[in-house]
């Protein structure tokens, strides 16, 4: 395995400020101008340091509300960490979550072009790969239908196909494979995952599916209430996680 760090987090914490009162209108802001509001602070992530190397299949597990998805959002630079934290991600990434990523009003074809183009492919290259993507997703008949009419299975197959073929270097996967596609499609996607490690692609995988974690990951992070408990091989981390659950 190569030794290039593609994602590095240093001293990353994330605190959310939540107001009791709903202030998000002009009316309320004016009406409540002299009243002070209760502000809660929620520490979603506490001082996380980690390095993910090129070709890693990095799993993140933890109980509900332990900050897994927030961590993924910090990695993808949707959320900015608190002051002092530093996030570096090298390469093109695509985040795969159920229910987001595509515009429902556009057709499958348009969405493929849009996403692949944003990932840095030229139209010509997308044109060459288009057939491959559609066949992989098994959506040949639905190329020109709007994505909003897709079932959730079709939707995630499409997202996965785009991710695989559009040459993203890093996949950020949030609970994506809870029953995506049938057995045949799963075999295909499993194969892609195995290949992706060989090709030096990096995967960050958030899941409750411990079997999938055990099978695929070479390193796992265990989070508990935003605190990193352990980063190690899947066997050790899963043992610790089971102890935590009891």
């Amino acid at each position, binding site marked *: 395995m190569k030794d290039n760090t593609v994602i590095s987090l240093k001293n990353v914490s994330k605190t959310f400020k939540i107001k009791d009162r709903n202030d998000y209108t002009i009316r309320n802001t004016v009406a409540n101008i002299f009243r002070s509001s209760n502000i809660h602070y929620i520490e979603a992530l506490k001082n996380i340091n980690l390095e993910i190397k090129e070709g890693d299949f990095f799993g993140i597990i933890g109980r509900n509300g332990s900050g897994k998805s927030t961590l993924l959002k910090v990695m993808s630079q*949707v959320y900015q960490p608190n002051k002092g934290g530093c996030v570096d991600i090298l390469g093109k990434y695509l985040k795969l979550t159920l229910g987001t990523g595509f515009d429902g009003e556009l057709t499958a074809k348009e969405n493929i072009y849009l996403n692949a183009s944003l990932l840095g492919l030229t139209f010509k290259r997308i044109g060459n790969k288009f057939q491959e993507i559609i066949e992989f997703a098994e959506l040949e008949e639905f190329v020109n239908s709007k994505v909003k009419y897709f079932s959730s299975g079709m939707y995630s197959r499409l997202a996965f196909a785009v991710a695989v073929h559009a040459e993203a270097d890093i996949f950020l996967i949030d609970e994506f494979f809870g029953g995506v596609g049938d057995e045949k499609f799963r075999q295909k996607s499993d194969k892609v995952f195995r290949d992706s490690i060989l090709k030096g692609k990096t995967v960050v995988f958030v899941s409750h599916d411990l079997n999938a974690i055990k099978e695929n990951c070479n390193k796992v992070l265990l989070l508990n209430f935003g605190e990193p408990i352990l980063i190690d091989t899947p066997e050790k981390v899963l043992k610790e996680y089971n102890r935590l659950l009891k």
Partner: protein
Amino acid sequence: MLKKFLNYIVKYLPENNKVERIWILSKSNFRKRYYGSSLGIIWALINPLFLLVIYYFIFNVIFLNEIENFILYMFSGFLIWMLFEEASKEGLNTITSNRYLIENIRIKKLDIYISGLLSKLFALIFNIFSYFLISLFFNIQYSANILFLPILISNLLILNLGISLIISIISVYLKDFNHFWDLFTLALFWLNPIFYSELILYQSYRIILYLNPVAGIIINTRNVLLNGVSPDFNLLAINFGQAIIILILGLIINKKHFPKVIEIL
């Protein structure tokens, strides 16, 4: 036919991902707005023409007025106003309507704003086209001054980009800002010399010329498009200055607040 025309343009653009990216973002934007409906793209043409007919009836038939070639006088002002209004509305919702992209892919924020503007520019090009068609029925002499038109339009685009950068942020912080913006644009609409003579502004309300950044662009567009004279360079300089100041402000505000806004989306 339109599709062929667009593909034709694309074919001769150099293969450049950045250009393509903005192109496809604005194309999808445009499609979303017009293609879902049965009349499709025709709405982009019908909407302004319909409004023009109504306003023509009111301001020419009911209130008589003495402006020459009144329908073109209105239309030339209206072209600019439509772009401003549509683009600022688009700008208002930029963050919410592109959330699916912002959260899932690395994307330059500015690209989203620029593509939103470009999709409105397509609509403007249609409208300019129908303006020329209508002007064939009148005895209009075009002069070389028409070459100023792209400069005026880019002035408007810079202004709109700056405004979008700011109001898209505010509209997330304050959910009912959209209502305020509707009222604001309505007021601004009537402060522009679209139906009445621009001389009124020049003679009695000069201050509006300097405070309303759209009025000058409308007047100058009319100068170069309809009257065939050179633009009022004083106004042009002021408008450009305003647009650039707003753009710089917008860039600063957007850079600072965009990450915060995402969290409360």
